[in-house]
């Protein structure tokens, strides 16, 4: 690592750092657009269905497979349900799964990575070996096993999905945090804290974690899309539980074919999925640039 990074961890400077980053983020139009799009999508998914009393469940097989029209902006699906309602309500699951799993990833990954990076040496070596080892286990395999374990619950319960998807994503987070902590612990302010007699716990919590927050936020914005995509694989394999974008996309794929295609069934969920992931990615990139002091010129 070069020595150009100058993150100073005191409280008042911390806010100015935040303000500084915010200022730079605002200047990054792509990232800003991503953020705005994200807010719009979340609002649409969580507020619109309630506000307009949309019903994603009411079937009317006599009005099935209608292309988008003024009555049904997104068309209707194979059972004649309003597709706009389904896409929005499906978004709730996908976004929730993404956020909840990411929260789990952040907690586990940061703790694990901080311990490994802070102590270094043998502890680091073995903890990272373990991460490497888990990388070697097919992630989908873990997810499927966990999903199966919980599959006898009588009604669809999305919590196992959060848990299972979070389970496989924390590895990368742990690696990244560990890498950061490894360099941070050699820095003057940590040494200074150490000299004043602060305990390991206190140093980690008060001095190191605030400094890795930036990269954690960035990586978290990248985890959300990864989890949403992972959930779509589950749906593709028939292990999905709830109405979600992944499930809609998986169903949509089977009805798009040159001989006949209800293209809107694939198009809308794909567009929303892609838009969300685009936004999150751009926002993540923007955050990275804003928080990375080296890009300050």
């Amino acid at each position, binding site marked *: 690592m070069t020595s150009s990074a100058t993150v100073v961890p005191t409280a008042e400077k911390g806010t100015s750092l935040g303000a500084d980053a915010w200022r730079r983020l605002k200047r990054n139009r792509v990232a800003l657009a991503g953020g705005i799009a994200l807010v719009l999508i979340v609002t649409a998914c969580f507020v619109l269905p309630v506000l307009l009393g949309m019903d994603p469940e009411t079937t009317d097989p006599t009005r099935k497979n209608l292309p988008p029209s003024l009555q049904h902006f997104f068309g209707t699906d194979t059972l004649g349900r309003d597709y706009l309602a389904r896409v929005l309500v499906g978004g709730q699951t996908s976004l929730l799964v993404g956020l909840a799993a990411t929260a789990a990833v952040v907690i586990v990954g940061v703790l694990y990575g901080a*311990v490994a990076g*802070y*102590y*270094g*040496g*043998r*502890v*680091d*070596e*073995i*903890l990272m*070996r*373990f991460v*490497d*080892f888990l*990388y*070697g*286990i*097919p*992630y*989908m*395999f873990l997810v*499927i*096993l*966990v999903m*199966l*374990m919980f*599959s*006898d619950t009588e009604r669809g319960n999305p919590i196992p999905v959060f848990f299972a998807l979070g389970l496989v994503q924390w590895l*990368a987070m742990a690696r990244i945090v560990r890498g950061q902590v490894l360099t941070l*612990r*050699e820095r003057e302010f940590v040494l200074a804290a150490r000299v004043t007699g602060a305990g*390991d716990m206190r140093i980690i919590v008060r001095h190191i974690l605030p400094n890795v927050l930036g990269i954690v936020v960035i990586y978290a914005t990248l985890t959300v*899309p990864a989890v949403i*995509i992972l959930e*779509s*694989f589950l749906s*593709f*394999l028939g292990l999905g539980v709830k109405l979600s974008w*992944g499930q809609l*996309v*998986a169903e949509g*794929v089977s009805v*798009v*074919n*040159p001989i006949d295609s209800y293209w809107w069934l*694939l198009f809308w969920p*794909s567009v929303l*999925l*892609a838009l969300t*992931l*685009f936004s999150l*990615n751009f926002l993540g990139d923007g955050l990275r640039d804003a928080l990375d002091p080296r890009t300050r010129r």
Partner: protein
Amino acid sequence: MNESRFAGAQWMAIGVAVLTLVIGLAIGWREAAVIGLGTGFIAGTAWWSAAMVRVGGSLMLAGVVWIFAAPNLGPGAAALVVTGVAALTWKFLPTRVQRRVCFMLPSLVMLIFVTSMLMYMAPGNPFAQEKVASPQVEEALRKLYGVPRDPTEFFIIYMKRLVLEGSLGPAIKVQGRTVQDLLMPALPVSISLGLLALILACGIGLVLGIRAGLKPNSAADYSSMALAMVGISLPNFVIGAGLMIVFSLSLGWLPVAGWGGYPHLILPALTLALPYAAYIARLARGGTIEVMQQDFVRTARAKGLSESTIIVKHALKGAILPVVSFLGPAAAGILTGSFVVETLFGIPGMGQWFVKGAINRDYSVVLGTAIIYCTLVTAFNLFVDLAYAWLDPRIREER
């Protein structure tokens, strides 16, 4: 800075203890004890001295060789081979690699144990049929296939079979074959698909990334990155279906699915490669931007070196380094993540097995795929680490 070699070990001890407690309360104390002792032992290998590591690693490797040599060569020849392997590895294998071996093999055993437990916790069993069989028939089948009702007993039977016979056990849902009979033909299929995908991912990713990185914030940058984003933002079964529709169903250039010739390989490999190509492009872009801002590149430009020379000599290097460190996880993902692609394109690879194995509760198949994948990916990671050390001398010194 490490005051003690054991700094931080208390956290690991606490971690293991909590794990043991949770498993003990949730599942059973016998299982908890096995897991607690196992993880404790594995964590303990970190404090083994170099000499212990060399001896332990060589012995473990020799043991593995024995397992597979003994049934095929007979005990005499196997003993000879094993002694040779033990001696050679002890003498020549770097300590770093030995240390990995000491970690890996016990971990694999733990993996088998934990996976057995998880599988048994899932509802259903491999002998459930649509029409209910009599309990006697089920008992007879359980005996025949070595699948008792208790996961720990199953683990013991499985390990015995693995160690004494070098066999991964009989497959249940496809009768008459052992798990290795099923997986051995599938492994080269997955590996060749994965390798081709990896090559494509690197090729596409590097080209896009360098193109974008050379002129940041230009049209070339945005178009390349937008293309890459598509790869990340859509599940690959959507991309695969799209490729199928365009290149097979509409244009008729490539076979739509199936296995049997080179053309069958192209679409699935491309589908598998695209998300990784996108990541690689982003990494390569960042690397290129960084290297192009360095003073020596400016100097080279000032000296009037041609742009192509600069790209080959400097940009490429800047682009490749971050990519190489991504290759380990990427290879793991590509090799293990092919199940969707294999299902979509009807390819008889490994990916299908661990999905089918889990869904059919074919316990031996599940364990067999997990073991093979894990070994493969770890070996690949080791290879990447060595390659990285070779490419970037700074890393070598740090270790």
